[in-house]
């Protein structure tokens, strides 16, 4: 064991990769430019595509921010060697704050409650009017600002303190982050819950589910963990950092993944089953649209692809100990998260049936789904790479790093 241990003093700073940074920036710029062109042809569906892409990368970011906060709150030590990878995923949050601006500017195109067309059902118009105290455009904007303020505060503090600790190795950064992590957990979670209400649930202003924020957050957390698995598998190997990440670290992330795949299955089914059971006319249309017609295959794909199959695969202990096999499951779950978001967002796009009415919806997918995904993802990844430049890829100043390197399964 000892001979493969690398002296921490030899750990180099990461000089960054100009090629990767350039590739991400170009892909991001090109993707966003094409999406802007798509906006000229079909503003509504382009904005929905953009919303899906934005939520996807926001989810990854918030998921790993939640993991980082939880680790600090629990005073965990095993994860320290992989903490910079976790931080790398939540570091590009400022880029997302900027990328939110188009959504605020074009909100009218997708949120029917901002400017309800007179042709809507009288019941629905009355319903929207009734919710005006919460669902109004100024409120939407200032609440969004508050969400980002809360997330940015916690995310930046955790990241900057951690990087500062690389330089001086002072334990006070850990102490400070433990406080901020504990304070941040409820704040970030509440902000994310309301963000999910405002940005996704209000696409259909007459439908509501109190579980919706949890649904979005849990799905995002699973996706964030999956990305973490992919990053760790990618860096694993003879490299300086890769050799420090051992099987027990993978096993732990795999176990978390299993736990949250189960949790997603639990809350997703609960949300569905409770509405099915109550059978209330203002609740069920949302699910009827999503489980019938063109969207039926999506619902089955999610039930099997996002819960049953990954659950059975991740039950295996051997699989969780094999980084490559675990990566296959993780990549699949990342794809499923995208399918999930499309399934949440697009059926609401018809802007036709609200309230108690429903009719089978066509898929109505748009090519900008691809360009927006590449665009937002490119900018997001470029921001992550840029922020990691010149930093250590392992938190070398953390007083508990040695504990993490020694970590074996208890």
């Amino acid at each position, binding site marked *: 064991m000892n001979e493969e241990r690398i002296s921490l003093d030899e750990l180099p700073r990461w000089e960054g990769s100009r090629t990767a940074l350039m590739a991400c920036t170009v892909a991001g710029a090109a993707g966003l430019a094409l999406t802007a062109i798509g906006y000229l042809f079909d503003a509504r569906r382009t904005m929905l595509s953009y919303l899906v892409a934005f939520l996807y990368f926001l989810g990854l970011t918030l998921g790993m921010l939640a993991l980082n906060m939880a680790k600090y709150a629990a005073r965990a030590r095993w994860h320290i060697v992989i903490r910079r990878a976790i931080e790398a995923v939540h570091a590009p949050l400022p880029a997302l704050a900027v990328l939110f601006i188009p959504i605020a500017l074009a909100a009218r195109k997708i949120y029917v409650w901002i400017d309800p067309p007179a042709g809507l059902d009288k019941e629905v118009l009355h319903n929207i009017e009734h919710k005006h105290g919460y669902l109004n455009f100024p409120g939407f904007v200032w609440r969004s600002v508050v969400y980002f303020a809360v997330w940015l505060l916690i995310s930046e503090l955790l990241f900057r303190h951690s990087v500062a600790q690389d330089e001086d190795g002072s334990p006070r950064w850990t102490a400070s982050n433990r406080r901020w992590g504990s304070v941040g957990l409820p704040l970030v979670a509440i902000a994310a819950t309301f963000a999910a209400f405002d940005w996704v649930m209000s696409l259909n202003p007459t439908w509501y589910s109190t579980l919706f924020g949890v649904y979005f957050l849990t799905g995002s957390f699973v996706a964030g963990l999956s990305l973490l698995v992919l990053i760790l598998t990618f860096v694993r190997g003879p490299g300086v950092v890769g050799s420090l990440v051992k099987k027990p670290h993978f096993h732990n992330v795999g176990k978390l993944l299993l736990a949250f795949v189960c949790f997603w299955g639990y809350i997703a089914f609960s949300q569905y089953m409770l509405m*099915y*059971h109550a*059978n209330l006319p203002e609740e069920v249309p949302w699910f009827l649209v999503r489980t019938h017609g063109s969207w039926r295959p999506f619902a089955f794909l999610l039930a099997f692809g996002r819960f049953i199959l990954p659950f059975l695969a991740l039950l295996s202990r051997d699989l969780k100990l094999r980084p490559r096999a675990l990566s296959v499951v993780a990549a699949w779950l990342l794809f499923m998260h995208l399918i999930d978001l499309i399934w949440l967002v697009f059926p609401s796009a018809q802007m036709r049936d609200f309230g108690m009415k429903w009719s089978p919806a066509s898929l109505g997918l748009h090519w900008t789904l691809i360009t927006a995904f590449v665009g937002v993802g490119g900018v997001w990844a470029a921001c992550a790479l840029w922020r990691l430049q010149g930093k250590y890829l392992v938190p070398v100043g953390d007083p508990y790093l040695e504990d993490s390197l020694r970590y074996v399964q208890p």
Partner: protein
Amino acid sequence: MKRLVLAEFAEPEPLVEAARKLRESGREGLDAYSPYPIHGIDEALQLPRSKVPLVALIAGLAGATGGYVLQWWTNAIDYEINVANRPPHAWPTNIPVTFESGVLVCVLTIFFGSLFYFFGLPRTYHPVFEAEAFRSASLDKFWISAELREGEEPGDLERALRELGAGRVTHVKEED
């Protein structure tokens, strides 16, 4: 009538090492006793993979199937009731009870199955209890037991165990 040689170790690591060496020398009927689980002892004794997960899976699936069939048969076949105009066979509403009954049957099976089958309870006598010193196995010492072959004298095996680091060494005979 079993005859066992018992050896006490102060630390778990030498016990694991002794278990491995004895097994490699062809000794059969080895067992280890410890106040807490020891890492590596399964490999050292080459214990077979536990059957508990398989039992749990079968019991869980049986319980879940039973739970589902019960609801389906009572609600959709035997006595149909129209509840909130859902179809008589409304599968989503059956899932919670299906899950719960699967867990219940699984847990009860592995709990009682372990107690009465895998642990062999209620077992009122075991040859190791012939040795008074063996009490320390439930306190702070680690014991290994090895079966003596037919007609074999305990002397050689006891010496071998002492060389492997055992403290107290003794041999016991199962009562008829």
